């Protein structure tokens, strides 16, 4: 269990992390999500006592990290795949870490085997590919068989096989009752691994919710219909009390109805369908919508006098209030002229949401 309370880090004028309060619970994978530069790595470094918070507190099972007598037993962390001396062999790298925590030497061979690096154990780390470096970093994290694991963007630069391996590893670690805290800027990646979601943007907490809730509230499912008899189909749908929205390319989109029902309805009236498919708006788009506030805010900050000012207008601040974020964002007028265009897809997704 990791508890953050009002955690704040300020670099000069810039608030890297702004009053973060949340809890990472054991037994589940908690995803830590935010766009690049949102303060994820800074938060993780503060959790590990590497950076001193400007204000606030982090506790690991009620203790400060630097008070832990057996830190590697408590937390295994992968912050940066290249945080190792390139001239040292994989085995020696792990050995010096193991020795610093009184972990038996045999454990080094075990974790090397777990991550599949046994054959290159005596090779220098600087010859390692990014994927191998990542695996070595994970071996270091697993060394103390810790109850808490922390990974900062673990799938960055990995091949599909490596990504698959990390996903399964994290799931199995959590299934053993460990706390797994993993950061990413990819929503799609989190959707596959995380059970709980903490979203930050510009150092502020945007969401703290279970993955299932996030999906339920943010993924809009609809049915796409395409027919050569478009007018008749519209009439029939209207007659059945189903609202269809015309999308581009002669397709219709229907929210809140089952594809089976729509298919049967069309068949009943002898309408030819060229397409009848259930669709789901991507979570990536939901995530972008959620963090758009902070990204947009970031673009503004050059023109605002105090970039550290609290409470950017419209920023969904409190956990729980985030659910209204996307709709709110969609109904907002387009940003001021100096703001960059919103990420492609987010606006169209937002308007869909409104129509639905």
């Amino acid at each position: 269990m990791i508890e953050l309370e009002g955690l704040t880090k300020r670099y000069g004028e810039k608030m890297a992390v702004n009053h973060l309060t949340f809890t990472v619970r054991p037994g589940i994978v908690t995803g830590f999500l935010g766009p690049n530069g949102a303060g994820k790595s800074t938060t993780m470094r503060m959790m590990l006592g590497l950076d001193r918070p400007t204000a606030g507190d982090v506790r690991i099972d009620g203790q400060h990290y630097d008070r832990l007598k057996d830190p590697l037993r408590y937390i295994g962390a992968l912050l940066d795949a290249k945080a190792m001396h390139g001239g040292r062999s994989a085995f020696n790298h792990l050995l010096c870490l193991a020795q610093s925590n009184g972990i038996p030497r045999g454990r080094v061979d075990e974790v090397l085997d777990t991550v599949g690096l046994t054959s290159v154990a005596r090779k220098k780390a600087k010859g390692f590919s990014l994927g191998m470096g990542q695996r070595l970093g994970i071996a270091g994290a697993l060394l103390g068989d810790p109850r808490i694991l922390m990974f900062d963007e673990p799938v960055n630069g990995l091949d599909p096989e490596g990504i698959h391996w990390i996903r399964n590893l994290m799931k199995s670690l959590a299934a053993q009752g460990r706390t797994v805290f993993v950061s990413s800027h990819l929503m799609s990646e989190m959707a596959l691994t995380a059970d709980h979601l903490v979203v930050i943007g510009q150092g502020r907490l945007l969401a703290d919710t279970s993955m299932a809730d996030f999906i339920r509230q943010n993924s809009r499912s609809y049915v796409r219909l395409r027919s050569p008899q478009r007018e008749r189909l519209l009439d029939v749908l209207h007659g059945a009390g189903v609202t269809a929205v015309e999308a581009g390319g002669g397709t219709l989109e229907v929210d809140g109805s089952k594809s089976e029902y729509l298919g049967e309805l069309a068949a009943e009236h002898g309408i030819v369908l060229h397409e009848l498919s259930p669709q789901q708006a991507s979570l990536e788009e939901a995530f972008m919508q959620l963090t758009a506030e902070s990204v947009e805010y970031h673009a503004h900050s050059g023109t605002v006098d105090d970039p550290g000012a609290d409470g950017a207008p419209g920023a969904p601040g409190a956990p729980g209030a985030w659910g209204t974020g996307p709709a709110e964002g969609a109904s907002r007028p387009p940003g001021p002229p100096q703001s960059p265009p919103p990420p492609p897809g987010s606006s169209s997704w937002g308007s869909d949401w409104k129509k639905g």
Partner: protein
Amino acid sequence: MSTPQPPTHQQAAPAPNWQAAPGTSYVSPIPITRTHLGHALASEWTKIKSVRSTMWTLGVFLLLVVGVGLLVAVNTTTEDYTEVPYTIPAFFGLILGQICLITLGVLVVSSEYGTGMIRTTFTASPQRYRVLTAKLIIFFVVAFAVSAFAIGLVGLFTSSLHDGESGTPWGRSVLMGALYVSLLGVLALAVGSMLRHSAGAITTMLGVVLVPAILPAFLMLSDSMRTIGEKMMEYNAPNALARIFELDTDSGTGGSQLALLAGVTAAAIAGAYALLEKRDV
């Protein structure tokens, strides 16, 4: 963009089970040990012996001290040693060799900052002062052992080559000489810990060693600076070593120079500890 979502899979995953019992925490079968300085020492010993820079710097150091020492020894006569210790041939190699120990001292700590290893190190040992203490101890022991071995070897070789009775016992110069160059290395380690940058720290240390040896020549030109120049002349590193090896016995045998270096080193170590706890890594 639109990644296919597996919401049903997500919700059907064993998540409900885990969330039903959030209190259950994983318990490792590995026995818990409270870490102490001994663990840090073992770790730092593995670190220092598992990188090539240690072998290079110490190898070059041995080559310089022993190699130059033996060359000097065979080119001297027995009469040369009536008033000076047999270890004197090691002096010439040490003047150059001290730079190797300075480099190693800096690298022991700054290479961790340069590679990012320091974050891994401090995650494994959040008690930063303990890591620095272990580094200081391990480096000092290694540097002292290697330099004492090198000087002693030169002394043994010279005494066996010129088997006359030397007027002075040479055991003291082995210990003092090794202590002096090792302390220079420890000072370099402390400077490396404060500056966190290999090139910067090595350059600083070369300045500390060379500037007081060169500057007096210019300071002596002006009357007002003469006293400062004389002090620098007296306390600079090459001169301190010369006194330790009794090249110039009239003005002491290097005790006060060694004390000054010990004082400066202690101050640098105190500075390194103070900054270590305060700064982010």
